[in-house]
């Protein structure tokens, strides 16, 4: 019996090693009580499968995405340039992250500032592991035959055209994937993007996450799968708002896979 390992880039570098892939944890993955469970689940999968990975640990800082979307380009670039310096110093080639906002920023916006990496979202990474047979799902787990709907994250879907990877991961669980009326290119935002996560909504007649949750619940799904920390928060709050938290779970893809793997 061995314990799970979470190597940092610094530890690896001091041993003269470099991992194949950097797992970019993100602020939500590091600090948000609920999303830490996703980070832990993903790290367990990486351990189990034997992926050569490392994290930046205390050296990681916010990508700057919310600052940029709120208009503060200076702050964004301060964060971005510092992160790029760290990643370039470790000669990072490939990055995987469980946050679509980090994914979008590092993939699309860091190159203009001197940081070019192959960046993939954890849904794509999980899909690859499943396709390669590295993650084996026995089926017959707790999700088998259940109705599950997937809520598209805007920064994964429309922003980067990743629609199929998370769905393939869910299908691998031997579940019934049901789509909401507004899905894929027409998916409705959870309400947190564009730095909305960090302020109260503007005056209106409804909260966006409630609107979206109603749509998700209307599918009759027993679980709402997400691939984004902000969506996870918003949809969880939405389900609570509708007093359905006892029957309907909001789960990240990595958590579902880890559960199915029994880890």
């Amino acid at each position, binding site marked *: 019996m061995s314990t799970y390992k979470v190597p940092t880039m610094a530890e690896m570098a001091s041993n003269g090693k470099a991992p194949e892939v950097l797992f970019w944890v993100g602020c939500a993955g590091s600090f948000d009580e609920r999303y830490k469970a996703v980070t832990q689940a993903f790290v367990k999968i990486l351990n189990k499968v034997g992926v050569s990975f490392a*994290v930046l640990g205390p050296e*990681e800082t916010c990508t700057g995405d919310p600052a940029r979307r709120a208009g503060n*380009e200076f*702050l964004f670039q301060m964060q971005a340039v510092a992160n790029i310096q760290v990643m370039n110093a470790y000669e990072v080639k490939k990055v995987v992250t469980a946050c679509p906002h980090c994914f979008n920023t590092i993939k699309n916006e860091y190159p*203009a500032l001197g940081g070019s990496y192959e960046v993939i979202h954890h849904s794509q990474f999980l899909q690859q592991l499943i396709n390669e047979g590295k993650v084996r799902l026995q089926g017959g787990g707790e999700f088998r035959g259940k109705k599950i709907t997937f809520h598209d994250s805007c920064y994964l879907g429309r922003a980067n055209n990743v629609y199929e990877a998370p769905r393939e991961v869910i299908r691998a669980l031997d579940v019934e994937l049901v789509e909401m009326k507004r899905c894929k290119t027409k998916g409705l935002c959870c309400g947190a993007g564009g730095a909305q996560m960090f302020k109260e909504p503007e*005056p209106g007649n409804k909260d966006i996450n409630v609107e979206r949750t109603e749509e998700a619940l209307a599918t009759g799904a027993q679980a709402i799968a997400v691939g984004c920390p902000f969506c996870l928060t918003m949809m969880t709050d939405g389900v609570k708002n509708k007093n359905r938290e006892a029957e309907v779970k909001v789960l990240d893809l990595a958590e579902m896979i880890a559960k199915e793997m029994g880890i």
Partner: protein
Amino acid sequence: MSILYQLAFVLILGAAGYILGKRIKFLRRNILLGKPETRNDQPELRWKTMALVAFGQQKMFKRVIPALLHLLIYVGFLVINLEVLEFVLDGVFGTHRLFAPYLGGAYTVAMNFFEFLAVGVLISCVAFLIRRNVLKVGRLNKPELKGWPALDANLILVIEIVLMLAILTMNATDQILAERGVGNYIDVGPLFFSHFLFPIFEGLSDGFLVFVERAAWWFHIIGILAFAIYVTYSKHLHIFLAFPNTWYSNLKPKGEMKNMPEVTNEVNMMLGIPVENQADPPAEIGRFGAKDINDLSWISVLNAYSCTECGRCTAECPANITGKNLSPRKIMMDVRDRAEEVGKSIDAGGPGLEDGKSLLGDYITKEELNACTSCNACVEACPVNIDPLSIILQMRRYIAMEESGTPSQWNAMFQNMETSFSPWKFSPSDRFNWADKVKESEQSQ
């Protein structure tokens, strides 16, 4: 036809051409009030995008019923304009149905096809009027359409209906006259649709029929010329600008925000990183972000002039759906209205951009900008690839960097990021604590 008619026709044609020319110059200048931006990369993909999205109406088909109705009007517009060529030549040379003798049977087929399209356009326009005014389709009845935009929309539909009726009237009277062997009217063979109008006109005398036929002809051609000029004042400009607008589409991932190199230089200097290109600093550092139309890329202003106010963006906008004071369509309308205002002021020798007004504040409020989730639903929804989001984000940049006017909760988020490198107020030294629990748990085999 007498030489006088020919002369009158040439004069009208010339006058219309002159006015159109002036209008095109006005629009072009207004669009170029925006900042220069070069977007000529991947020309093959750009032509392809234009062919699919503008010419092929690809994105219209996300909503099938309006797409089919629109397709009929669009094909009618493209094809019936071929007939206009004959109209113009007839007008200039004093001929009648110039192409008929050359095309023979094909002319009959073409005329029948034109009539089919004319009827299609007619039915579609009536359907659109009903959708707008009777069924009151949600996105066509939003507050930003009150007044001129609603009138503009209805006018366009009514004008198109009247123009199509003119074609059918002209063909019907023309064929009755040809049957009667009057003057130089040519029997072009059976015309299916206008034949239904025969009962209305059959009782009329030759002289009166000639009058009706000529009146319909003149009405149609003058109507088309007048409509072409009207279009330059109208949201209907999309019939032309959809093409360049899609050619200049953003081909990058939608999630990418454009970098601000002027900021990068300063950030690098602050972090002690050698700055490239320091030898040639930018000639003038403009504003950060956008306060007015001249701070936006010219492509954003082109976007605004290409917008036909269909409101598919607004119908998909999560902020709008939940009652927030944001409509991406209004953002586009505001940019266009402001460009028009500035353009007119410049032409009148007025202050132009320095009129004490600006896009931010006088047209678009902070509340609207702050309501956006940057979800790209509006960008995805637009049938001609307009990008309202880039305008919103540019304006947020101005508010944050020039006015320090962001909402206080965002300022708190900025402060957290500056001090603890996370949008939340957590100690940076706790960032890696999540791993403790994992490291303690044992791997099962």
